[in-house]
């Protein structure tokens, strides 16, 4: 029996929710970043599921692009974290709080 599409989608939603909670709860910049990656993965799953549902490979191509862009983003994001870490010797996002009242 084929698995209903809905299962993939629910799995995607679940993983996305986990990623969200991770962004909000963890204080280590790198772990937050990883949670964002989890979110992106979840979305990719969702895209591919729909691609299968609707026929054609457009969803997969979009997921492909998503991976590529995620890679670029990770590169830049990590460079920033490294730069900040050099200044402050801390990867705790709560310390980066100058833009406040």
């Amino acid at each position, binding site marked *: 029996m084929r698995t209903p599409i809905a299962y993939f989608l629910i799995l995607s939603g679940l993983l996305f929710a986990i990623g969200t909670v991770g962004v909000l709860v963890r204080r280590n910049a790198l772990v937050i970043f990883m949670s964002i990656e989890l979110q992106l993965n979840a979305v*990719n*799953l969702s895209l591919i599921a729909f691609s299968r549902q609707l*026929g054609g490979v457009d969803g997969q191509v979009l997921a492909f*692009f998503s991976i590529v862009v995620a890679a670029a983003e990770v590169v830049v994001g990590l460079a920033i974290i*490294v730069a900040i870490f050099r200044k402050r010797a801390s*990867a705790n996002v709560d310390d980066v709080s100058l833009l406040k009242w």
Partner: protein
Amino acid sequence: MDLLVFWIVAPISVGAGILMLLQRNAVHSALFLILSQFTLAVMFALLGAHFLAAAQVIVYAGAIMVLFLFVIMFLGVDRREALIEPLRGQRGLAIGLGALLVAVVFVAIRLGVGLATAPGPAPRGDNVEAVGRTLFTKYFFPFEVTSILLIVAAIAAMVLARRRARGVPDTEVFEEPEPEREVVP
């Protein structure tokens, strides 16, 4: 058959995600994320996206996560995050939000696709060929743009992370502003 695979792999996926959150050591978190990505690759394969399953493993789990690990180790592996949460209500709100999100997604799916709809027929032909064909004809322009994006990202990373010559600060020294005194009208 698919269903069985699904039901074995899906819990692993979710579990890996949750465990990723709960690790106090960043390296452990990264490893669990890699596990989660492997499971997702299996999901992709189930859905007939063989090319992407491969890409997921090679690019995501293989390159991106390795990069992550480099940086984690670079910045100090032995740092352990404290357990207490300084912001009040943050955890509660976060979990609440997460639950809400799941519920909304569930409802949306139920209303939209329907819980029992079977996936469409498996597309004929080689998946890789199909992806390649679509990619280089219909989505050619975005493809080229993305390649430029990658180059730009590489350069940006080099610029952002380099050490300047001695004496030249790489970023401006930013002083903490003094707390404002209340202005009495």
